[in-house]
């Protein structure tokens, strides 16, 4: 009886001690979380400042074109295509290997909406050509806008 009671007491003491240890460890974790967050504040402010500096002073259009600039696309050709291709047209984007790496065809799909991009240039009414030879298209086209070496906008002959 006495033995059981002393065992229960020592178990209770050990539980209390464990509880205190756990509580202390938890308090240390809270402190670590707070310190880690505090240490990050200057870096966050610097990052925000750098991003603001990079975009401040730019026009609304330039800001919307930020991904095209960032990924090295031809912004002039993009804007010209927007002017020339009718809003209800189906168009295709034909680019060279290097230009494809910039994601240009995908960005055109976004930028030129509601114009619809077809992956098949044979099914398109218009073609945006960048870094590729027109003679290799396999469809008869007329040049509507020629940006020199920077690309062409073609209307498919029907």
């Amino acid at each position, binding site marked *: 009886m006495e033995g059981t009671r002393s065992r229960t007491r020592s178990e209770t003491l050990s539980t209390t001690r464990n509880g205190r240890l756990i509580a202390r*460890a938890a308090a240390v*974790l809270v402190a670590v979380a*707070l310190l880690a*967050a*505090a240490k990050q504040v200057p870096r966050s*402010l610097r990052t925000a400042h750098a991003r603001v500096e990079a975009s401040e002073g*730019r026009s609304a259009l*330039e800001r919307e074109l930020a991904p095209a600039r960032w990924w090295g696309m031809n912004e002039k050709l993009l804007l010209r295509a927007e002017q020339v291709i009718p809003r209800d047209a189906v168009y295709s984007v034909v680019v060279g290997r290097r230009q494809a790496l910039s994601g240009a065809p995908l960005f055109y799909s976004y930028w030129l909406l*509601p114009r*619809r991009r077809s992956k098949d240039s044979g099914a398109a009414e218009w073609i945006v050509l960048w870094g590729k030879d027109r003679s290799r298209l396999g469809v008869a086209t007329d040049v509507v806008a020629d940006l020199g070496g920077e690309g062409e906008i073609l209307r498919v002959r029907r």
Partner: protein
Amino acid sequence: MSAAPFLGLAMLDTLLLAAGLGVLCGLGLARSWADVFRHGGLALVLGWAVVGIAESWALVAGASLSWWVVASICAAIAAAGVSRARRIPAFRLRKVREHGLARWVACAGAAIVVVQLVALLWRVRTQGAPLQWDAWAFWLPKARSIADFGGLNTGIGGFTSFASPGYPPLVPALDATLFSFTGTTDASPLAVQEWLIAAAFFAALWSLLAVRVRPAILWPCLALLASLPNVTAMLASSLGDEPLMLLLGLGSACAALWLLEGEGHFAALAAFFLSAAALAKNEGMPPALVMAVIMLVVAVARPPRRPLAPTLALAAPLAALAPWWIWMRVHGLPPSPDYHLSDLLRPALLSGRLDRLSYAAHVLPGHVFSRQQWLLTMPLMLVASLLAATRRPALSLLALASVGTVVVALLVVYWIGLRPVGWYVLTSVDRVIASAVVMAGVFLPLLLEEALRPDQSSG
């Protein structure tokens, strides 16, 4: 930019707030001005999630997302919530308070959250279209196609013509709604909206977790969450991973509170957030199901046995996604061009791709525990789970299993993926892991509170 788009944005957020307050009113959580003030952030982010679910269904049913359709959806949700108020008694969430020196710890944490959100707003104010590849390659184009073509168009240049056509439509639907209200498809107002939702997320976490967690623990943990470099980089990125991490974070908070408090209100909130997460991205479903299954197991194992609420929380994400699955089947869309889940049943193929699994398993820990990207969130959560395990084993299990599910699901996808594994990991890991880290950051204060709590009861 003119002020008109921002007036439209304000109008949309007022409607989302009304829808969210309606739902909270229906649950008994918002019945006074004090409740409205406290739960304003929760109401906005809940309205955003619930309206997103309803819009996804509306799109699948063939509706467009013009402003009056969205206004009708918001009004219907708000009215349904308010009409339930007569039958559901008020349930005021308590708030743990702080005294003495510990208040200053809470103040320091809160100050860091405010500074981080202000820094983010400063950046977002001048931000244009997002730079992240996936954002402009398919998330924004999908949203624009909904706005331009009046719904889910399956023709050339339509919704299904972009990458990942099998992703559910919640995120593009919410973005398209913003385009309808701002009257422009420019991405700049979208960044501001994403900031507002992020701010509402932190306010919602505070109003929910304050039920259980004292401010001196809660605010330092929220400060850590607000300071994570990769989380702040992803906020206002227009990537689908951004709403996914916020929705899973809120779902985790509500599921954990249900475990600790046993109130059906939290299970209902978890059901809404987890359903929206499942509709935000395919990656949302596995952690949503795991959380709901753990809730159900606990409900069955622990007296008084009340499995109804967790059963509904389990059924909700599946029911929310069912219309989209049917729509995909009707239109012959593959679930994912990047992997076939059925490959998991082909042992020969799996063993032939063990090199992919071993590569992913080798590089993944470096990303999950990256201090540069996630500070100390993961190690802190793991240690806190161990500390809380003796007192709250179910909570520790919920935290470890939910976070672990994201990591394991990612490993499985890399294993059965069809694209080169090195490229696949490089282009996706840090985005997808964000959900796991945010969940870890949400569980952290709850685990620490339970570890520090003198109460010995297990749960």
